[in-house]
């Protein structure tokens, strides 16, 4: 009896917690299907007209493309840089390694506002005008430490002998990295990539500070919001959410499943 109560209590707690996390999102998605002009109760739908409005809005669709481009490309750079740094720290004894490692990880703890502001000042100083390119650089700055941390955590001594064996068989350093180390770490590299993509995908402050004419989706949504709430903002928010969910699910089903399967077999 007491056990039943206890598990009921736990279920209730779980419900509250999930409600707290997901209710705002659920409301957002629900009212994106609103028939009327205001995303407030009562709900009168469902209707897809606001989605139609989103996809026929040229500014929104080009912002969406911009966001995807920036996310995919900047994450690729962040992953390559993060991997190379992780390889260096894990495989070579560097003077002052602890200090360099701390410096590399530092952007994780600094607010995006400061990083964005710093980059803005720097770009002004060297005369680089704001564009999607500078936004991409900003995202490489914030995501490289993340990729480094994820990939570095998955590098252990158990791969050391495998790399030694490759070198012993005649592979050069770059061949070891490219043909042995990177493929071995592929699950964590892909995990780092997708996580970096999701972070870049909905990053606002840096994108806002460093872009000018071509903007990313969060910036475009922000300017939309300034003209007041309407179900169209809900619809575009839902699209952003949906894409994030798809990325996370992709990650879950491709990488983590495969890893779990391999762990079970070995």
């Amino acid at each position, binding site marked *: 009896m007491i056990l039943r109560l206890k598990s009921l209590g736990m279920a209730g707690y779980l419900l509250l917690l999930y409600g707290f996390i997901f209710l705002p999102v659920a409301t957002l998605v629900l009212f994106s299907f609103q028939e009327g002009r205001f995303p407030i109760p009562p709900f009168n739908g469902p209707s897809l007209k606001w989605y139609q409005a989103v996809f026929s809005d040229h500014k929104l669709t080009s912002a969406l493309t911009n966001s995807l481009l920036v996310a995919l490309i900047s994450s690729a750079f962040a992953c390559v840089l993060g991997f190379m740094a992780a390889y260096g720290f894990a495989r070579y004894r560097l003077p002052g390694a602890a200090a360099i490692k701390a410096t590399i990880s530092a952007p994780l703890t600094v607010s995006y506002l400061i990083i964005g502001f710093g980059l803005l000042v720097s770009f002004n100083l060297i005369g680089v005008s704001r564009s999607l390119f500078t936004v991409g650089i900003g995202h490489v700055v914030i995501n490289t430490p993340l990729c480094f941390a994820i990939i570095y955590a998955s590098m252990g001594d158990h791969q050391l002998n*495998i790399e*030694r064996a490759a070198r*012993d*068989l*005649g*592979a050069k350093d770059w061949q070891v990295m490219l043909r042995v180390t990177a*493929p071995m770490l*592929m699950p964590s590299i892909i995990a780092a990539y997708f996580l970096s993509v999701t972070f870049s995908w909905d990053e606002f402050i840096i994108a806002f500070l460093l872009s000018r004419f071509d903007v990313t989706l969060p910036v475009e949504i922000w300017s939309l919001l300034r003209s007041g709430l309407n179900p169209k903002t809900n619809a575009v928010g839902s699209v952003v959410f949906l894409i994030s969910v798809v990325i996370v699910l992709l990650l879950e089903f491709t990488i983590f499943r495969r890893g779990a399967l391999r762990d079970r*077999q070995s």
Partner: protein
Amino acid sequence: MTARVEFKNIGQRFGEFVALDNVNLDIEAGQYAVLLGPSGCGKTTLLMILAGFISPTEGDVLIDGKSYNDVPPAKRPTTTMFQDYALFPHMTVEANVMFGPKMQGAGRKQASERAHSLLQMVNLWDARDKKPHALSGGQRQRVALARALAVEPDVLLLDEPLGALDLKLRRQMQDELKAIQREVGTTFIHVTHDQEEAMAIADKVVVMNHGKIEDSGPAHRVYLQPASLFTAGFMGEINLIAATLSGISDGVARFASPFGNIDLPASSILTKTLNPGDPAQLGIRPEHFRLADSSEAVSLGSAVVRNCAFFGAHLRAILSPEAQPDLSLIAHYAQSQKLSDGDRVNIKVERDAVIVL
């Protein structure tokens, strides 16, 4: 593809710790040598020095008469087979074996032919498309062997290659290793702490302890006439009896011991310098005890059987000799013998088998 290996005055220090102390060792081309010793004795360090993963603090490594100090592993005519096999987990068995030839500039076709012949040799051609994680321990070991031999090394270095396998598989694999070594003719240098494994496969057993070579030679010589007390004890169980040399005449050495005077052939003295009055240890292997009397036997008086157990191939008894009751002698008798705890037996030992250290 085979070569002679020489270690000349090799010394290796890790900070204060002396891992190897003035090691000199020759291994003939085409020999199967086994470095044997307890953990921490320096055997793996010596192997890693030959492989090139560690450069020695002192001394020279010569392969085929050429010094290889400061030459990186990839540029040496050696290949290492690691203890954990270190297979490439993301590649198929065939790709693993092809890796070496490809890295050394062979074309795809050539590398694949090489992999084909080696995988056939180790009986894994049918498993060529599997990934390492889908293989059993013994199969992984064979893939590692094929991969290492694919680059046609002069010397193959095996770091505890059978350590991860269960006993039965280990015995089977050691026969296979030896057969493959005979087939390819490459010099094999194998590190282990299992003396049975060492004796089963080695042309030359090298016993190491505390960074030094205690003994080296063919298995039967190292086992029956060990050069040191350590070797005697490490190669198998041995009973030691303290004695003093009384004198040598006509090729017979007489020892004074708690069991009275014991006469042994002078050739059983294995340490070179033993003068009358010097203390010595008489070593007797358990399998050299007899129950039947004969003129060839040394008698050590009677004893009480304290503990007797049937071991399948033999009967293992712990004896408390009357002359020295606090000493326990371990004796192996024929499995057909009927002995039980508390029985009184006469201790007889084959005279020629006793060694003096």
